[in-house]
């Protein structure tokens, strides 16, 4: 007899692997139709990354992971937070201003800025939460709107507080003092450092898992996501949960811009990286809202992004091809989880049938 736990683990791994294979297949079809060199594209992308690239992958994954977590918090309650983009923009700006002003010395300044970022992200998402809870406004609509407003608002305030960087036309907030930055570490002797924030991201993942699965609050949140009517009957205040879930989702989203801020750019400027919120949606789906799953999804997306960079130079294919792969993964993952689930059910049924047959033979004997 096979160990049922091994079977379960195998099935758990089978689903994402199947999804990836399917996604690669579909991307290959696109390449073939477009007349691009399929083999060369894949050998470029799927190569083993160099040390320098590994640091980039880890950094990018850190950011994507936080974004995925923020979206996942909402998903667990059937809330679709599309506004992670706006939330981390507002939050990163606030953190940059606070850290740049350096009211507190050293690490205390860092902590204060991180808290300020989480508060700002929470407040921004909280608007959508309150609108949903009190007025029934769909959070999908309101968070999209808030994304636009965030862009405008931050651009406006940036002009008010900005200092012009020396020798360039870019403007940005004051630089974070040396003592308040988060130091990175390097892998091997590559030139790029890995953000120290990666540990905070891992901690965030652990807290997410613990709160959802071990606390009463997490129970209430998951129950509300599964059935609002049953949640109400069980004594959960759904309006309160909606607001709180959006606050938490926003607070986590507030962290998304920080690895870069504290580990690389040290100021919020016009070169701010946007669009990470949407990648977060895909990654949360891919990782099935599970903290480890999201981590794997974030690493995968970061890996594909990094490896596709030289495509244009090496084989003359636009790196945008991986955006297709990433998009397709989101679809195939949904399908393959279902396929594997059904297969698992069948396996179990066969096991039951065999046990029954054995029982009967025993009875006959």
């Amino acid at each position, binding site marked *: 007899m096979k160990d049922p736990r091994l079977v379960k683990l195998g099935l758990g791994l089978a689903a994402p692997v199947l999804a990836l294979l399917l996604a690669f297949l579909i991307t290959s079809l696109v390449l073939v139709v477009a007349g691009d060199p399929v083999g060369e594209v894949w050998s470029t992308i799927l190569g083993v990354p160099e040390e320098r690239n590994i640091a980039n992958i880890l950094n990018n994954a850190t950011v994507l992971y936080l974004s995925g977590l923020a979206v996942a918090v909402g998903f667990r309650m059937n809330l679709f937070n599309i506004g992670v983009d706006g939330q981390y923009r507002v939050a990163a700006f606030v953190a940059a201003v606070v850290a740049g002003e350096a009211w507190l010395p050293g690490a205390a300044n860092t902590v204060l800025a991180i808290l300020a970022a989480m508060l700002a992200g929470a407040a921004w998402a909280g608007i959508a939460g309150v609108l949903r809870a009190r007025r029934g406004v769909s959070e999908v609509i309101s968070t999209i709107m808030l994304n636009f407003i965030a862009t405008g608002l931050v651009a406006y305030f940036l002009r008010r507080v900005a200092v012009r960087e020396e020798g360039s036309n870019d403007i940005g907030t004051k630089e974070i003092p040396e003592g308040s930055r988060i130091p990175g570490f390097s892998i091997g002797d590559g030139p790029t450092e890995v953000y120290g924030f990666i540990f905070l991201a891992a901690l965030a993942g652990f807290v997410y898992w613990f709160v959802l699965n071990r606390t009463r609050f997490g129970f209430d949140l998951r129950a509300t996501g599964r059935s609002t009517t049953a949640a109400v*009957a069980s004594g959960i205040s759904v309006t309160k949960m909606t607001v709180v879930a959006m606050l938490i989702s926003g607070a986590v989203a507030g962290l998304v811009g920080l690895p870069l801020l504290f580990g690389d750019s040290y100021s919020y400027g016009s070169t701010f990286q946007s669009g990470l919120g949407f990648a977060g949606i895909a990654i949360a789906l891919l990782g099935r809202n599970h903290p480890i799953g999201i981590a794997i999804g974030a690493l995968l997306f970061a890996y594909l992004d990094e490896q596709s960079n030289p495509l244009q130079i090496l084989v003359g294919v636009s790196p945008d091809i991986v955006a297709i792969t990433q998009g397709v993964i989101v679809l195939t993952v949904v399908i393959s989880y279902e396929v594997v689930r059904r297969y698992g059910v069948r396996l179990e049924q066969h096991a039951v049938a065999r046990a029954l047959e054995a029982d009967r033979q025993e009875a006959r004997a």
Partner: protein
Amino acid sequence: MPDVAPAVRLRGIGKRFPGVIANDDINIDVARGTIHAIVGENGAGKSTLMKILYGVQAPDSGTIEIAGEQVSLSSPADAIRHGVGMVFQHFQLADNFTVLENVVLGAEKLHGIGAAARAEITRISDAYGLGIEPDRLVEDLGVGARQRVEILKVLYRGAKVVILDEPTAVLVPQEVDELFGNLRELKAEGLSVIFISHKLDEVLSVADEITVIRRGTTVATVDPAGVTSRQLAELMVGSELPSPSTESSTVTDRVTLHVADLSLPGAEGPGQGRPLLDAISFDIHAGEVLGIAGVEGNGQAELVEAIMGMRPGATGSIRLAGVDLDQLSTRRRREAGIGYIPEDRHRHGLLLDAPLWENRVLGHQTRKPWARLGLIDRKAARADTERIVADYDVRTPGVDTLARALSGGNQQKLIVGREMSGEPILLIAAHPTRGVDVGAQAAIWGHIKDARRAGLAVLLISADLDELIGLSDRIEVILRGRMVGSFDPSHVTPEQLGSAMTGAGGAV
């Protein structure tokens, strides 16, 4: 002239789910123009079998023949094409549509959506005595009428075999009689009816043939003329048929629940002013069971939800053992000692996609032994779920099984066990034995009586008048949101209650 080929012939049907064998070698023949009843314990596999015959689930083995032709049904559309229709226990009608719209929805190709469709609906309604007006709004119809609309929907699509899964569970006796009248009309026109019920007296009175399913397999097909309900019950489970009877009164003089002047305004809008609850007042003492009799939709659900704090618009005063509940949230009210068995277990009682142990915690998130410092101790929750599964005979492979995988009756047993745990002082029980088999019904009644003897106050709402009369110390009749009469269960007959419930008479 007897038709040689039966309307439905099932041979060797088998169906497995993870950890359970739902159907195993089922053999049934349903003759044309008959009413065929299917009975069996909770979890015996009745609903699964019907879902197979209606194409919702695929069998693992066995064959289905309809009117002599072997078929393979992979969807309800397939089943309808072969003349098989099914009415589920949870009605599937759109409330704000008319009967006509509901009936033609998805079947526009048959008779269009206009005059021809209306004529066809009227024709069917007249032919089988369903008494349906095509232009009524579904939300204005009572439960019995909605069920007839569901039946008409099935007939409209050309069904020759009509499956009804526990159709009488939601009906009061008069409605049950009407339904059986309709079913007899159907059979007189040569249609076949397959229906599932746990109420064996009903089964004996209306069925032409009865098939008993035990642990997923057909153990006997009997002629109702030749058996008693006691023998049927023995075939099903091997145990005896219970009858509810109140023992000596345990009513104390301590008021547990005091409700005064409870009102709930009706839906807003012009001319929609009738209140859902109108100045309701009553007391329930420790050790007392107050039964509420009424046709479904007369304010019972609203009354329960107002007491639970789920209806923000309610006015009046509610006190539990001297504590004013008016300002308390639903959670605080539960913590104050209310157990709540909701009327609709799928909407209000369960997280269908969560394991049983999480469902055990639901509604009791803040209770010992699993709630500690805002955390939930899974081991303690699992252990207590095991206890309920054993004490209340919930048939399940384990406490990590999803609630959805349990049969309807077993889901109900889990809810009852959960709400009777933690020593509530007030139990609000809406249809506590709906959908459970005779054995489990007796067990649940036993649990309620034991708790009552220990001082539990019970607000009992039930469509089953025998249950109401058997368990209650006092019965109030509710009609259009008002209490219209009080009865002593030891002197009232189901007929008297029935007429009071429809406003036809009784004490006012």
